[in-house]
């Protein structure tokens, strides 16, 4: 398999998709035949494989191929979209005519000149997944299973899976930008079920990166085994807190889910240009403590949320969304950037060629402050400390967000005491942001396999946080 790396030329890429430069120009010309301010073509060939272990044996494998091209036409804020699952010129032209249906001002235009555009590569692969046999992957899966059982005699079941995918992307738009990308992704899960005194609990851990075969190593296996076993073991002693409003210390790492749900989605500019976000009138205003900076970054090497360029041909970047407590920028796609008269921020992403791009997060995190984790815990008389989550959600207009805590601890008189588990925490975005009283000096980007869902589309993302103290959130409990 070839890699669409820097040394691959345009002819190799076009050949991969069985198209010519002239084909691209013809399809784009057709897409703009009824008018339209902008059009683009998004070619994708994704190969996805998984291999999994159950009951001690590596006994299931699956492979999937997805291939097609999406044609988009934009008129102001309006979008026409169609896709086909092959790249025969006649079928692509048919899709272009369908997408063109959004426009109604036919005009003559010349074919768009092609400008090859290259971007920095944040996920260069040394050994592609397509060059690795099932046998080479199998031993890592078996070792993770063995380590999970070795770590605790209470383990009665383990499940392990490895998923990896490679996406070949070719992009061309009416500005003449022609780019290509080779996007790897690897995820490994380790889950365990444990039994103690007739009670059964289970838990899991995952890691995900844009990496090739070098993703698999001894450290990864050890980390996943330790995390899944320790999280599960903790649950046997866990209780549910007494529910209600209380201070919450969010431990560094996965607590980035607070940013993702409480403000990240509401900062996506499509919700704001449509005037349905609770932050629609907050641009340029102070929204939290002035020592808080929040970033959405697509340039972290090998991160699950990294992208070389977004799915609209905009270079990836590190975007400050909150600087010194002020809402500095929304997360833009081309449509919203045009609406607000600003430059796109490289957040126009899509799940696949079947979907239109829209503003999406990449890796969202808060920069470190100057408090220690211990100082924050010590400042709380009665509350909870949480650092392990499974899912979250937000209502963009009302601002109410939630996240589900798998495990954490009670804080009593400034100390962590009993473990807690399986509780939902709910808050309101602007209020929670304003209620962040302390920011830790320990930023950690969580490397679990976070996936963000919006309007029926899923994209890989990352999130991170230093420890923070939120003075008041509503904690589920009995």
């Amino acid at each position, binding site marked *: 398999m070839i890699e669409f790396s820097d040394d691959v030329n345009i002819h190799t890429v076009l050949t991969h998709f069985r198209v010519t430069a002239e084909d691209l120009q013809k399809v784009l010309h057709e897409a703009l035949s009824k008018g339209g301010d902008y059009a683009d073509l998004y070619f994708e060939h994704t190969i996805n494989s998984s291999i999994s272990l159950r009951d001690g044996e590596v006994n299931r494998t699956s492979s999937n191929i997805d291939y097609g091209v999406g044609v988009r036409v934009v008129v102001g804020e309006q979008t026409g*979209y169609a896709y086909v699952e092959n790249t025969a010129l006649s079928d692509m032209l048919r899709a272009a005519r369908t997408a063109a249906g959004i426009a109604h001002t036919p005009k003559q235009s010349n074919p768009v000149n092609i400008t090859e555009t290259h971007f920095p590569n944040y996920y260069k692969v040394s050994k592609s997944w397509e060059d690795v046999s099932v046998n080479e992957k199998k031993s890592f899966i078996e070792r993770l299973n063995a380590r999970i059982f070795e770590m605790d005699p209470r383990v009665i079941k383990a499940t392990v899976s490895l998923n990896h995918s490679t996406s070949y992307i070719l992009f061309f738009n009416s500005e003449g930008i022609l780019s290509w990308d080779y996007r790897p992704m690897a995820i490994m899960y380790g889950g365990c079920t444990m039994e103690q005194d007739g009670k*059964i609990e289970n838990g899991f851990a995952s890691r995900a990166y844009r990496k090739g075969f070098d993703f698999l190593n001894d450290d990864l296996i050890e980390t996943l085994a330790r995390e899944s076993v320790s999280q599960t073991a903790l649950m046997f002693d866990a209780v549910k807190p007494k*529910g209600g409003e209380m201070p919450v210390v969010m431990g560094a790492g996965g607590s980035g889910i607070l940013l993702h749900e409480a403000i990240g989605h509401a900062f996506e500019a499509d919700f704001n240009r449509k005037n349905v976000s609770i932050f629609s009138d907050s641009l340029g205003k102070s929204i939290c403590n002035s020592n808080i900076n929040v970033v959405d970054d697509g340039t972290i090497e090998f991160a699950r949320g990294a992208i070389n360029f977004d799915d609209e041909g905009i270079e990836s970047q590190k975007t400050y969304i909150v600087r010194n407590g002020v809402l500095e920028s929304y997360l833009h796609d081309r449509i919203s950037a045009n609406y607000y008269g600003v430059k796109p921020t490289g957040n126009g992403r899509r799940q696949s060629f079947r979907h239109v791009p829209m503003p999406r997060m990449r890796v969202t995190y808060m920069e470190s402050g100057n408090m220690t984790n211990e100082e924050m815990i010590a400042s709380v008389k009665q509350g909870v400390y949480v650092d392990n989550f499974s899912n979250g959600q937000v209502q963009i207009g009302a601002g109410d967000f*939630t996240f589900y805590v798998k495990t954490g601890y009670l804080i009593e008189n400034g100390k962590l005491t009993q473990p807690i*588990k*399986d509780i939902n925490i709910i808050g309101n975005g602007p209020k929670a942001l304003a209620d962040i009283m302390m920011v830790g000096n320990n930023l950690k980007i969580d490397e679990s396999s976070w996936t963000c869902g919006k309007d029926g589309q899923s994209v890989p993302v990352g999130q991170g946080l230093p420890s923070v103290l939120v003075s008041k959130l*509503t904690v589920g409990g009995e």
Partner: protein
Amino acid sequence: MNLITDQYKSIAQWAMDIALKNGCSSSRVSLTVANNNSFEYRNSQLDKLHQSSENKLYIELYVDGRYGTLSTNRLEKSELEPFIKNGIASTRFLAPDLCRQLPDMARCYKSDNDEDLDLFDATFFDYSVDQKLELAKATVEEIYGTDERIVSVVSSYDDGCGAEYMVASNGFEGEIQDTAFSLTSEVALKTAGDARPESYWYDSKLYWSDLEKEGISKRAFKRALQKLGQTKIRSGKYNLILDNTVSMKLLSPLISAMYGSAIQQKSTFLLDRLGDKIVSDRLTVTDNPHLKRSFGSRWYDGEGVATKDQVLIDKGVLNTYFIDTYNALKLNVLPTIASPSIIKLEHGTRNHTQLLELMHHGIWVTGFNGGNTNSTTGDFSFGIEGFWVENGIATTPISEMNITGNILDLWNNLVEVGNDPLSLNASRQIPSLLFENVSFSGL
């Protein structure tokens, strides 16, 4: 008309033959096709049009007691043949798993019963793009501009038709096709402050003529208005009425816990509970796979096994698990069905208003916001919104609260089942429900 053409059937059969000729002892192949259209209006103009047609081939390989699957949307034989051969070669690296088998043909659906389940509207292709656009536009115009509190109205008309052809080396052959039409409206409001309370309403039907074409936005607007002034109240144990629009949310964990794979992996709170009284005797749940003109209706499950009416939970007693062929062999029990089709709750006699009167005081939950269930223990915690009910009347709208507990405890506290499932052609027909003594956290 048949969406699955003879050409599609021959590709699926050819793929199965290639698998068998290259080392598979058995194989099952599914070919799906789909056409979808979506037209979205936002305020006064068309915002998005989206059209697509697609197909997919899914191949299950049983190779010397080993199991692998393949799927692709590339249907050219020149690409399929090496893809299948490579898949077989990869599968050979796995450990044998002798429980991977096709179901006994005696359990499978026989296509000699071809009674129509009325899932396909033959008029699907008769409606013009202009008609569909007009429907979406008219839905927005029902309310846009009629009230200064409205900041956004988005309506979407969506339709689709799809089909699946399945063939297996044990002799099974089946074909199913359906249509779907839906109309949705989302309304956002703004009054004082920065919040923009929003709500939605929709209708979804298998037949164009059944689709509600008026009143969708009006209903969404009414639901959004009801959210104005939401607040949270003191934490405590309250009675709960679960609205029929969201009542499946708390039944789902109970249904998920009945799957064979969860039983086999010991990761369900219903492990070893078959035949036990697990919840209140007010709860009777049935699977009704052959309801005509209903979403989810089918003659066979994902393995080709014939579906049949069955009682899942009978007056609180757990009557069955969902055991497919693989998990039956792993567990050394008889298989049942891989998954349920159309789930119904045995109705009570009270309508929603009468349930509110019966509850007298408590919280009427109309929506969920996040949360989850621990599938091994049944512990749950969900964000909720709804209304405080006093003397049988909804008074204060509430939000930003959680309910927390254990699913079996919750269903043991079921007091009354309403008579008002939202739709009689949905795959989940669950009325409003009244529970007592549920933990709410708020202030």
